């Protein structure tokens, strides 16, 4: 497919189809409705199926059923819907099923509003539901990256047999940008025959079970240990970040998703005025890319965390990653607002004056 101008939600939907996803289960919620709409129009044309769940609770359990067969499946929602899905996501992680979940996040808590926000970081990076589990969380900073990460999400979920969450705020969902969506080769689902349902003959006439209950502690403890070993492999291998103008920086701005775009503009502007500012942009929120903060140049005097979250949900991860060596300040907007380029510029200048 040639480069074309697409809306974020539709680009994510098409990217998923091009990555071999043929089954989508979801429930309408703004600002991500174009994804189920796109899927309902396009999946039947490629031999797939769109099923509208009666709720997000049903949708995530449909995803669990679909995923249990070893085929590529997904759901998308926005903040309140992801909260409802959390029980199901915990079950999916426990049963070690691959699937992709997209959260086009909006303002909260509660019904909040339908405008963009980054207030679901903590929910996403903690897994969201009960128990000791994690999701790989991918946070695109532009629409081409949203396309690429959506496709990576399917590969990663298959690689680790773990749900992968793409976390993009409402701006990313609703803006338009030029993207190129290439077909991504999916595994033949029969490679999953040793654990997936419905491959009785391929498996030589033996049954498998997909379950999350391990009543005896001598089963549950080792299974949890096994999961933690898997998460340790993810931590070691999957953390991603971008360094932008870090080499000579005196101040590091850190931001992901939409706020990273605002920061990039601000940095470009004030660099022209001689301010030495760079950016560390996490691309994976879980595993958190601590390496992005651990080898900063000597010149760095402090960090500015920029978020669309009233409680600056990422800042603790940044603080841990720097081992509290550097002073960390914050700036942002929330409740549906994004910080302006001017706001970030001024916050940077203020800090560099000190």
């Amino acid at each position, binding site marked *: 497919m040639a480069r074309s101008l697409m809306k974020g939600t539709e680009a994510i939907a098409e990217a998923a189809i091009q990555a071999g996803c043929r089954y989508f289960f979801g429930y309408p919620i703004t600002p991500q409705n174009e994804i189920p709409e796109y899927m309902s129009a396009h999946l039947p044309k490629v031999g797939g199926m769109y*099923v509208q769940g009666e709720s997000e609770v049903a949708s995530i*359990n449909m995803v*669990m*059923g679909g995923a249990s067969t070893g085929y590529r499946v997904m759901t998308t929602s926005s903040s309140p819907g992801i909260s409802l899905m959390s029980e199901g996501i915990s079950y999916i992680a426990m*049963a070690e099923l691959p699937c992709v979940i997209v959260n086009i996040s909006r303002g909260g808590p509660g019904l909040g509003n339908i405008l963009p926000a980054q207030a679901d970081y903590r929910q996403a990076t903690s897994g969201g539901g009960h128990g000791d589990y994690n999701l790989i969380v991918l946070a695109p900073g532009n629409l081409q990256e949203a396309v690429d990460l959506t496709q990576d999400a399917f590969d990663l979920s298959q690689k680790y047999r773990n749900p992968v969450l793409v976390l993009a705020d409402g701006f990313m969902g609703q803006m338009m940008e030029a993207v190129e969506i290439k077909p991504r080769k999916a595994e033949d689902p029969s490679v999953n025959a040793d654990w997936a*349902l*419905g491959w009785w003959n391929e498996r030589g006439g033996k049954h498998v*079970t*997909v379950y999350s209950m391990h009543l005896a502690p001598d089963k549950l403890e080792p299974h949890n240990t096994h999961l933690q070993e898997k998460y340790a492999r993810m931590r070691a291998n999957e953390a991603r970040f971008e360094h932008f103008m870090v080499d000579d920086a005196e101040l590091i701005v850190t931001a992901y998703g939409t706020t990273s775009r605002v920061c990039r503009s601000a940095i470009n502007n004030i660099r022209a005025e001689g301010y030495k500012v760079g950016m560390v942009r996490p691309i994976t929120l879980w595993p958190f890319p601590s390496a992005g903060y651990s080898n900063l140049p000597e010149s760095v005097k402090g960090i500015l965390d920029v978020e669309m979250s009233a409680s600056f949900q990422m800042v603790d991860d940044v603080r841990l990653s720097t081992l509290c060596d550097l002073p960390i300040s914050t700036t942002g907007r929330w409740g549906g607002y994004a910080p302006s380029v001017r706001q970030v510029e001024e916050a940077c200048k203020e800090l560099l004056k000190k």
Partner: protein
Amino acid sequence: MSETQVFSIPKVWNENVHTHYCPGCTHGVAHRLVCEAIEELGIQDRTIGIAPVGCAVLMHQYLNLDMMEAAHGRAPATATGIKAVRPDKIVFTYQGDGDLASIGMGEIVHMMNRSLPLTVVFINNAIYGMTGGQMAPTTLLGQKSTTSPAGRDAKVNGYPIRMSEMLATLAGPAYIERVALTQPKYIIKAKQAVLKAFKNQVEGKGVSFVELLSTCPTNWGMRPLDACKWLEENMIAYYPLGVFKDFPPSNTPANTSTTNTSN
């Protein structure tokens, strides 16, 4: 003298497993009927079962089938996900009354209404068995449970829900029948109903639902035979046996009148 074999364990039953069910519990009878139906239809290699959260949560350890365990009440959604991806498979849910008629009420209604070819085996024992005998949506008026110690009171707890009748008002379902598991004359009918519910799916005929009135001697605080008697005297009176819907699915709600064949 020639010997005639009159009893054998179904092939769909895993060898050498013993269930955790209490003595006199009819979950075991229901499992057997499911096994027999699958065996008679020759569909073991393409059947996928969904165990509920409830006393039957370990069902996947007993049956030699591809099976999964759903979250509490969500078996219908899970089954829908599987059937959407694998329409060539025979997919069934096995659910208790707390699972299906309380926490999973939304999921069962919408699955029945979508009418993808699926099979539901619904165990109505008028109680939450697994968690220790709390009130279920199906608990009878006046029936004592650990959370209705003075007996279910409609003023506080509402009325027992008749799921078969309620689901029969939908245009989607192909087949809905209520049967009982207390004695051979009922079990023979129950067997036919379970078989039909699977056969319908093999033939692509929408969604089929069999409600099996079951005993929970442990949480009813009765001996097994008393439990059977209590079921027949009290449950069948409120939950009449019979066919509430039969193929072809009607397209208009006007066509959903019930044909109650109980006597």
